[in-house]
């Protein structure tokens, strides 16, 4: 197991290096002078020069990259060109909030999507099955933006059940978590139904039933365990997607997460922050993938990492 972890960590390194190179090139090769964007519309040539010098923008691209890489290896992500705070400090402020929101959203998805999928699979073709599938279709095709605003108008403005926006109490988390999780919920419901139906038609299930096992035992002990393996993969991947894709939901609900920081930084070409944030998301992705693989071993005894 330790050897496996080590090997995975080594494979992750070139991936992360690739991310660093790509992001570095993307933000720099975009047309337009970042100094102009940073200095604002009103700056004089002297100010521009001072800003270029301050952020090393007056150096050649390879030079800038080496300086950036060197600092990165020392754990220094640089300083935000807009706020002039260390990037690490900025990420520490916003990332936990995104993590919180994405975790709540995936929890919503797992706690509603999977049970709905199971219920639908147990009574294929029933009215329940049909309604779950219609809801799932709606959930997958609903634009997050529209759904979020609708949720605010109905549940905050009209009914007054939940706060409109911001972070504070547990109630603040409800609408954004459902909004962010709605697509994943629908996806999980469909996946669970599909895989469970497939497993239920297999020979060993028939054998289990023929042995006279209670239906409950057949479904939960034998069928579900196998059906859930692909679902776990999807949960893991979805979690990563939620982390990266929380931008819109965070915007609608004024949630103080990475999305808010990232959008402002991209528009202002705040290089250090954009690079730091993308790197952080990439690292999280790699870690989640690793976690999913480890989870396999727990769910499916046939999977061994030696």
């Amino acid at each position, binding site marked *: 197991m330790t050897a496996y972890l080590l090997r995975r960590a080594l494979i992750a390194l070139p991936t992360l290096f690739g991310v660093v190179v790509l992001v570095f090139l993307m933000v720099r090769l*975009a*047309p*337009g*002078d*970042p100094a*102009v*964007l*940073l*200095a*604002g*519309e*009103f*700056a*004089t*040539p*002297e*100010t521009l020069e*001072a*800003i270029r010098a*301050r952020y090393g923008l007056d150096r050649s691209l390879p030079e800038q990259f080496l300086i950036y890489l060197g600092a990165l290896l020392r754990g220094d992500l640089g300083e935000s060109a*807009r*706020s*002039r*705070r260390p990037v690490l400090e*900025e990420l520490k*402020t*916003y990332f936990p*909030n995104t993590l919180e929101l994405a975790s709540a959203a995936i929890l919503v998805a797992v706690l509603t999507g999977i049970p709905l999928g199971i219920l639908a699979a147990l009574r294929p073709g029933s009215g329940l099955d049909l309604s779950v599938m219609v809801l799932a279709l709606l959930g997958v095709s609903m634009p997050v933006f529209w759904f979020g*605003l609708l949720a*605010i*108008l109905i549940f*905050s*403005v009209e009914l*007054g*059940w*939940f*706060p*409109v*926006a*911001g*972070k*504070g*109490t*547990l*109630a*603040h988390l409800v609408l954004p978590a459902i909004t962010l999780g709605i697509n994943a919920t629908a996806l999980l419901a469909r996946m669970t139904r599909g895989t469970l139906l497939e497993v239920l038609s297999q020979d060993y299930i028939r054998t289990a039933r023929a042995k006279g096992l209670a239906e409950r035992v057949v479904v939960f002990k034998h069928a579900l365990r196998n059906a859930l393996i692909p679902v776990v993969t999807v949960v893991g991947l979805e979690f990563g997607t939620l982390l990266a894709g929380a931008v819109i939901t965070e*915007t*609608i*609900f*004024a949630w*103080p*997460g990475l999305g*808010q*920081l990232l*959008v*402002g930084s991209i*528009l202002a*070409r705040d290089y250090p922050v954009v690079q730091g944030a993308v790197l952080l998301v990439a690292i999280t992705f790699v870690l989640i993938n690793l976690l999913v693989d480890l989870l396999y071993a727990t769910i499916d005894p046939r999977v061994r990492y030696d």
Partner: protein
Amino acid sequence: MRRFLAILGVLALPWTLAQGRLVVAQGTDPITLDAPLAQDSPSATVVTHISETLFELTPEGRIVPHLAEGHSFADGGRTLTIRLRRGITFHDGTPFNAEAVKFNLERFVSRELASPFAFLLSELERVEVVDSHTVRLRLKNPFAPILAHLTHSSTAMQSPTAIGRLGAQYRDNPVGTGPYRFQAWQKGQYVDLVRNENYWGQKPAIPQVRFVPVPEGTTRVALVETGQAHVAVRIPPQDIPRLQANRAVQVVRSPSLRTIYIYFNTQRPPFNDARVRQAMNHAVNREEILQFVLGGIGRVSDAPIAPGIFGYAPVGQYEFNPGRAQELLRQAGVSTPLRITLHCPTGRYFQDIQVCEAIQGQLRRVGVEATIRTLEWGAYLQETQRPLQENRIQMAMLGWGAVTGDADYGLYPLFHSSQWAPGFNRAFYRNPEVDRLLAQARISTLPQGRQSLYREAMTRIWQDAPWLFLHSELQVTAIRQEVQGFIVHPTERYLAYQASFR
């Protein structure tokens, strides 16, 4: 179900408004609270409550002493002596005096700080302390707009002790002389201010103010509708009718110093002929654009700068007259259809691309076929500011906020021939008479004299038509009925210190 609702009801308690606290929903979180670095309006708004400037620009466009008590020019306008108010201390107890002013102004222009607004005091040569409450500013050249520049929120006075003590942490813990003192900043969530009980001026009526960042316009509106915020700034037009139907909320429209225009490259055919530029101005129906594209959220321009700026005067109207436009094009020897490219930003200004599309349709009626080209903002700026030889723009939309509230800043960078791109005169406009008038108004220290110089310069600019003059923006703000006295400043700052609850 009822029990579920009851539980939710209990949960709901924490987000009802605290007594005596005004909540203002802005578009974004401040980026920094260190005044010289605060570029965006949310930052400048919060800074203005904490730190004050030597002079103040009133919402009506007058420049009045603030932390200064009075001033005098000498040496042909090269020396400005400022007398300071006595008995003022910063929130940390540091006395406000001539030394503090010298410290702040020198920090403002220093290269280490690299403030994007350093240009405001680029004429400053040195600052001298005359006595404890008098400072003398020595200028490189006579420069009348200096007073206006000292009203800019980036030049606000901040405690030298706090800056020295906190270093880089100062931007998160600002200390000024203002009516409110800084209390807490939970990044991305809120900035809390409390009333300065030792304030030297009129003490605010409201003991606490909270600024919350809410990027989505409709969400800001919902906050005000539900009473979770008192004020929401920058209301999207589609939400205005709903708000107006709500008796708990007032919708306030206030002028902004920002002017939107489309400039021509006046050095290249076909726009090197003033008649062609005038024809374009006659071909566009601004009232129609204002009503149908901007939803009434704007004001048709009658001068190159907006009202509320010192030196503004209405100098003209280009009547909508397609016949006259065609006539002028014929006189200029332009054969139609005339094919041109119109550059336009997307999402930078209110309804920008939609305005361009409307203009495209209107120009077609006089035989001008405009192709719209859009670019991402960074690339857009780069394209438009190339020097003449490399510049391929024919017409492009831009906006200009005269941040100092003075006509010099609204006109000199845009129309003086010394400011050709890569400066801000992207139309490559040159008129020796306008050059002379703008230069004269810079050194003339008598306000009346400056005003008439600007009127004359603007009249000539209007006739030369280096721009397709469009409109100035309006700021739409939703304020709950129980709040009065909240100021929406033309510089796009929002001021709570004269507000009170009914």
